[in-house]
């Protein structure tokens, strides 16, 4: 692809090319961020629908809305979709759009690698969800070959002996594809944050959202290889008949649990840290004062990331690892509650003495803090192994992680959406609808998940498609179902707000009068982000006198700016990888499987070489 001609100083910056081809070949971090956001929110709605059907089925004891097999597929896909296809990519949407702007860069370090990450994510998500519809290709009816082994896919239930169908093959190959997307993005953002900061922006002057994203990327880069190996073993067991998790041959089912949770716990910090970063940006802006204890909040985030590697076996207290291992992991899990608590206190410290304006971003950020307190406390309650023996695998744990993931991450992400919407689209979402959305979600969320503490303590295990009336948890489940419906309505209000706001008043560069660098450029920013790369003198450049030079940025770039063109090769490489995956899916029959896989491999290799030798100047 020819690179875009360099603009002559007098002429306005080159208008971003339009049309489908420009989107398919885009390497602009802002467009990739929008693509991530739209795709991830679509999958978030799919995951939400799956949750609604689950709640309708559990609304009453002995319900027959869905069969056992269908229910197992629904809860597996709800978990997998929400973790891998909704929350992580929604965070990635913010990484893509906001990090380069916050550190004063024109784009990420490797724009084409960035596009590659998105396309692999999109195709991986479609591959995984195609399992709902392609049953007939496997001689089964539709809605019967979606993954059904749980988002955790414990061995040896997921072995070919106990899960013979293609269900788990979709899950296994889908996860490997999505792993590639996350890893590629991880290397890209670590390099971007290290190497493309504006002059004067030392690490301790970086915005907290970028800091938390930086820790998140290190967790991704170190955690995903472990689950990749765990899933490789499962793939080899299922495709070639190796004996990694085959108990008869000496294999150990606990190996999967260790490898999965070694990834699993850093994964949940990958899910929460970006939202914590967003809250640490929103609270100061709407309290009209700096974040309380910036350095402490940053170091707490780093500490959470590091200690996050030492807690994984608290998911395995009922396995009986022995009192010593249980004590060690209980201690490390409780230790991690301290920096998390410190972060919460620092947020309250930020609010203290502020001039609090409860605009929608602030509502969701405060909602995050309030609900995350409940989630954090209920988490500590089963950090103690004996108590966990009663709580693990029950709805008490479901309540805990929904308070932390829905009350926490989703509220944080909505705070981010309302906060940066004007920067991304140039128009602000309506306040009134935003508040309605918040209150519906806040009440709906509490109605859904608070009763789960009780159904869990009263002995309702997880992942059961039905339960007897004698259990005494029917009312709690009914309330949860009503809450889920209400939360669904809240999502509709948000979509309505998105539609209605398309023609709102144009929001200027800094509608919230915030402090960080992304608010120094126009809304939406030009394709090259900053007419001139500013020099930063302070952690809050727009609030401090002389915090940023030149201030304000010149409207037209004084010198010609090179804007890299598009490239089709990231998409082609992504297609190649997914074709290999489709080949893997047909492992029952040798030649079609080998043929498809080799074709995919060929496409991938050719695309990589084209990508490598394409004239492309960053």
């Amino acid at each position, binding site marked *: 692809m020819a690179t875009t001609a360099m603009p002559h100083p007098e002429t306005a910056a080159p208008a971003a090319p339009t049309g489908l081809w420009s989107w398919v070949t885009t390497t602009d971090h802002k467009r990739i961020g929008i693509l991530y956001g739209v795709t991830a929110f679509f999958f978030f709605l799919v995951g939400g629908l799956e949750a609604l059907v689950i709640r309708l089925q559990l609304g009453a004891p002995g319900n027959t809305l869905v069969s056992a097999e269908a229910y197992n597929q629904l809860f597996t896909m709800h978990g997998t979709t929400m973790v891998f296809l909704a929350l992580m990519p929604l965070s990635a949407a913010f990484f893509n759009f906001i990090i380069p702007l916050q550190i004063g860069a024109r784009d990420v370090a490797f724009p084409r690698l960035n596009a590659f990450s998105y396309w692999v994510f999109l195709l991986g998500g479609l591959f995984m969800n195609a399992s709902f519809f392609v049953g007939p290709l496997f001689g089964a009816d539709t809605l019967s070959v979606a993954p059904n082994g749980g988002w955790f896919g414990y061995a040896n239930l997921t072995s070919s002996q106990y899960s013979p169908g293609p269900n788990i093959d979709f899950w296994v190959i889908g996860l490997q594809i999505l792993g590639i997307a996350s890893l590629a993005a991880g290397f890209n953002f670590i390099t971007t944050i290290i190497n493309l900061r504006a002059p004067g922006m030392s690490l301790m002057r970086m915005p907290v959202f970028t800091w938390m994203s930086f820790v998140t990327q290190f967790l991704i880069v170190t955690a995903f290889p472990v689950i990749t190996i765990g899933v490789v073993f499962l793939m080899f067991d299922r495709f070639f008949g190796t004996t990694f998790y085959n108990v008869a041959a000496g294999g150990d089912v606990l190996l999967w649990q260790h490898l999965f949770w070694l990834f699993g716990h850093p994964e949940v910090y990958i899910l929460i840290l970006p939202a914590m970063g967003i809250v640490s940006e929103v609270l100061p802006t709407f*309290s009209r004062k700096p974040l309380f204890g910036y350095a402490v909040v940053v170091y707490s985030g780093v500490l959470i990331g590091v200690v996050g590697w030492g807690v994984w076996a608290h998911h395995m207290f009922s396995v009986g690892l*022995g009192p010593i291992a249980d004590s060690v992991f209980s201690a490390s899990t409780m230790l991690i509650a301290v920096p998390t608590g410190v972060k919460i206190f620092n947020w309250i410290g930020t609010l203290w003495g502020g001039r609090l304006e409860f605009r929608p971003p602030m509502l969701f950020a405060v909602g995050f803090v309030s609900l995350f307190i409940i989630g954090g406390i209920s988490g500590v309650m089963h950090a103690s192994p004996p108590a966990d023996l009663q709580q693990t695998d029950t709805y008490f744990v479901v309540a805990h992680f929904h308070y932390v993931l829905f009350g926490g991450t989703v509220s944080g992400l909505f705070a981010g959406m309302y906060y940066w919407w004007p920067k991304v689209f140039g128009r602000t979402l309506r306040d009134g609808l935003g508040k309605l959305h918040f209150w519906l979600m806040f009440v709906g969320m509490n109605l859904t998940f608070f009763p789960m503490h009780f159904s869990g303590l009263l*002995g309702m295990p997880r992942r059961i498609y039905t339960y007897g009336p004698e259990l005494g948890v029917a009312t709690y489940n009914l309330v949860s179902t009503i809450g889920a419906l209400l939360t669904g309505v809240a999502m509709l209000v948000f979509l309505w707000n998105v539609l209605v706001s398309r023609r709102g008043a144009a929001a200027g560069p800094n509608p919230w009068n915030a402090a960080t660098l992304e608010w120094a450029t126009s809304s939406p920013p030009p394709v090259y982000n900053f007419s001139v790369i500013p020099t930063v003198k302070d952690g809050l450049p727009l609030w401090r006198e002389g915090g940023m030079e030149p201030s304000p940025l010149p409207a037209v770039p004084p010198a010609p700016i090179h804007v890299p063109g598009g490239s089709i090769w990231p998409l082609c490489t992504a297609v190649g990888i997914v074709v290999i995956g489709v080949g893997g899916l047909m492992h029952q029959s040798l030649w079609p499987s080998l043929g498809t896989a080799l074709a995919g491999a060929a496409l991938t290799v050719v695309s990589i070489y084209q990508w490598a030798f394409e004239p492309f100047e960053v």
Partner: protein
Amino acid sequence: MARAFSRRFRASPWLAGLVLATPLVLAACSGDPYPQSTLHPASGVGEAIDALYRNIFWWAVAVFVVVQTALVYTLIRFRARPGGPEARQIHGNTLVEITWTLAPAAIIIAIAVPTIRTIFDVKGDGPPDALQVEVIGHQWWWEYRYPALGIATANELHLPQGRPVVLAITSADVIHSFWAPKLHGKRDAMPGRVTHLAFTPDSVDTYLGQCAEFCGASHANMRLRVVVQAPADFEAWAARQAEVAAVDSTQALVLAGEAAFKKIRDPGAHSCIVCHTMAGVSGGVAGPNLSHVGSRSTIASGLLPNDSAGLARWLRDPLGEKPGSLMPRIDLTDDEIAALVAYLGSRK
């Protein structure tokens, strides 16, 4: 709007506290509406776990009230009022940071000490004279073996009251988790490993429980009961289980049922004797031991009551009752079903 917001918020901690307390109050006074409650232990170890849980619970409530109140108070006091004070540009306060780092650390230690102590209390090694029972998880039912007494049963675990018991737990296929909440926390049943639960049931009662680790299609239907009997009753039960229940030859229906049970069907796997053990008749091990199925209160791992209606429903369509069940749909005539119901019912 801000005022409505903060009023709604001011109510939430007290509302939450109240709602949190209801199950404790409710369960304590009414019959037993919560058979699988984790809050009503009926064994020494269960009480130790419950005591630890309550200790942590009250710490949690205290932290919840303090922190949420601090948040709500801050939201109300510093909300933007027309003509109100500007925000104070505070950057941090080292002393405050130290205090609210040490405070949670102290609470954590206050929880960690009893936790570690209880961990060693519940690590699953009973006294040497404890009753040894092997618990084996299958896809989707429980098998119990009493090696000392030489008997095997399914889904309903009989235990003597007041005597320590050690359950050696494993699985014959995938991972399950044995859990009778009122007696002890759950312990995973894993293929290729043996894990243990040790406890002493306090009082005579029937305790409900179910599998707590996702194990496939009918994970929800893999229920269990622990029937704690007075020592004398337990001895009688065990003795009864050891005998071969004689067939009452005067009952034509029972004899027809025995014939139907022994009948080799087409395909062979549909014959009862291939999968089930019936003392003196057959030795199949794929399905539960039916030698004394008549003495159990439920069948199909707690799904159906053990009466003629329940037995008939199960025999007519096992896959409908328990999705994915390994027991196939056998084409039985109504007469055969009636005969089998009588015969199995007589296996007391």
